[in-house]
């Protein structure tokens, strides 16, 4: 086998460049060189797989945001506007057209409203801060039951923790370090013998799953139950499992978090991984709605 073509040559070949003789040389090499042929094949395959990406839709609100930003920019008599006399003329017609930072432009008010809303919601969440309850507030049962009943009874065995304010991997990490109930839920999920979860038939969280009477001071009978109850959390585990890479499967559910993730009201499933001991992941869903794919996922450790 003569010298391998370098990447530039393979790139040119794949781009359809070269005269007949040059292409024939590369083709002959590929026919006799499995490693070069594999490179070209995997590159070609990657090109084809890109076809699954369609052009994304314009997010709602972006058009208005752009229009407002362009309007504000055009109103500035800034030197950056250069020789475009039009801006100067327009600006001259507007007394004191000061440069407007983007966050003061009208579009920012939507964000401000969201912050205000968050400020109103946080105190409410704060009341139940630290509450550990179970999804749906069901009465306790043996873990054996949880494991064997399967189906609809599963999610209500998984504790739900409310965390006020913004939740991130760091929040959960510190929670696990300081909140023994969260840590217990995690330890039981990862314990040997805990029921493994599968996408088809999710199972209970295992022997350590806390029923209300085990949850100690954290449980208050007056604690508000999650609005949509256990049924809505039922699909979380299958959805997370479907999104997990095979090495992480099966996932073991530790607990749910109800909190804000990147400004959005979410339900977050915290799992450990059977495939990778020590791994803890967050699976973020819209609040009380796991029927779709996870919005995001993030490793805690």
């Amino acid at each position, binding site marked *: 086998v003569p010298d391998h073509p370098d990447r530039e040559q393979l790139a040119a070949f794949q781009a359809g460049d070269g005269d007949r003789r040059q292409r024939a040389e590369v083709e002959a090499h590929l026919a006799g060189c499995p490693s070069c042929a594999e490179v070209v094949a995997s590159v070609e395959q990657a090109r084809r797989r890109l076809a699954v990406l369609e052009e994304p839709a314009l997010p709602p609100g972006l058009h208005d945001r752009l229009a407002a*930003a362009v309007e504000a920019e055009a109103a500035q008599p800034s030197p950056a506007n250069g020789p475009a006399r039009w801006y100067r003329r327009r600006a001259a017609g507007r007394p004191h057209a000061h440069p407007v930072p983007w966050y003061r432009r009208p579009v920012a008010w939507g964000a401000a409203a969201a912050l205000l809303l968050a400020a109103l919601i946080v105190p409410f969440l704060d009341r139940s801060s630290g509450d550990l309850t179970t999804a749906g507030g069901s009465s306790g049962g043996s873990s054996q039951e949880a494991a064997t009943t399967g189906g609809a009874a599963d999610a209500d065995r998984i504790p739900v923790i409310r965390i006020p304010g913004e939740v991130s991997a760091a929040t959960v990490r510190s929670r696990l370090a300081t909140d023994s109930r969260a840590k217990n839920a995690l330890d039981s999920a990862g314990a040997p013998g805990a029921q493994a979860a599968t996408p088809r038939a999710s199972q209970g969280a295992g022997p350590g799953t806390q029923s209300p009477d085990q949850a100690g001071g954290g449980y208050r009978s007056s604690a508000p139950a999650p609005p949509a109850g256990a049924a809505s959390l039922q699909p979380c585990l299958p959805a997370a499992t479907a999104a997990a890479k095979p090495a992480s499967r099966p996932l073991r559910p530790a607990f749910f978090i109800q909190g804000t993730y990147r400004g959005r009201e979410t339900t977050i499933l915290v799992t450990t991984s059977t495939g990778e001991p020590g791994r803890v992941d967050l699976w973020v869903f819209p609040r009380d709605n796991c029927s779709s794919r996870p919005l995001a996922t993030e490793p805690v450790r």
Partner: protein
Amino acid sequence: VSDPSDESLLAAHLRGDPRAFGTLVTRHERRIFGLCLRILGNREDAEDATQEAFLAALRKASTFRRAAAFSTWLYRIAVNAATDQARRRGRARMTTLDPEDAGVAADPGADLGETVTAAVAVQTALTKVPEEFRVAVVLCDLYRVPYADAAQILEVPVGTVKSRVFRGRLALAECLGAPPDRPPLHVPGPPGTDTTSPASEPTDPPSRPQE
């Protein structure tokens, strides 16, 4: 009556037509947003970069020369806005797995469809491809920009564009890592934990094409 060309709209804008630039925004906003989203991998950054791109285009409008197509000129501005945004953000932002961001229409209530999952996997892998290569792949493979135009957009020789596209696809294949005959039915695990990924340093390409 056919719609005015982009170039004549820009000329009208420079003559003082107050609506011409807005028409250009409306005409190109979706493509520019999509371009930024593919490069940046998350919607928030893509929206910011899209805004920056149009503002930069507005500021630079008078520098446009008819030698290039308006779209080529705008793409160059958008690519610069996106890469600037990436630098501003560093690597702090997590990769989003929102199927809408993967460019597949979300079908509420549907199962995690294979198409959606595959699209999310490809977008996730794309964000792991070194930026220089990723931009070339996004332009040439996703946006079907001819190599010669991509060379103008990136201000590099055509051979360099081809090389970057090739290396980008190769890095993508490595990130996707599935056997050729079996499309992936999963998204990769959360970012930052995938030690099998050979190209997890987008800002530091392991090897650079000859330029």
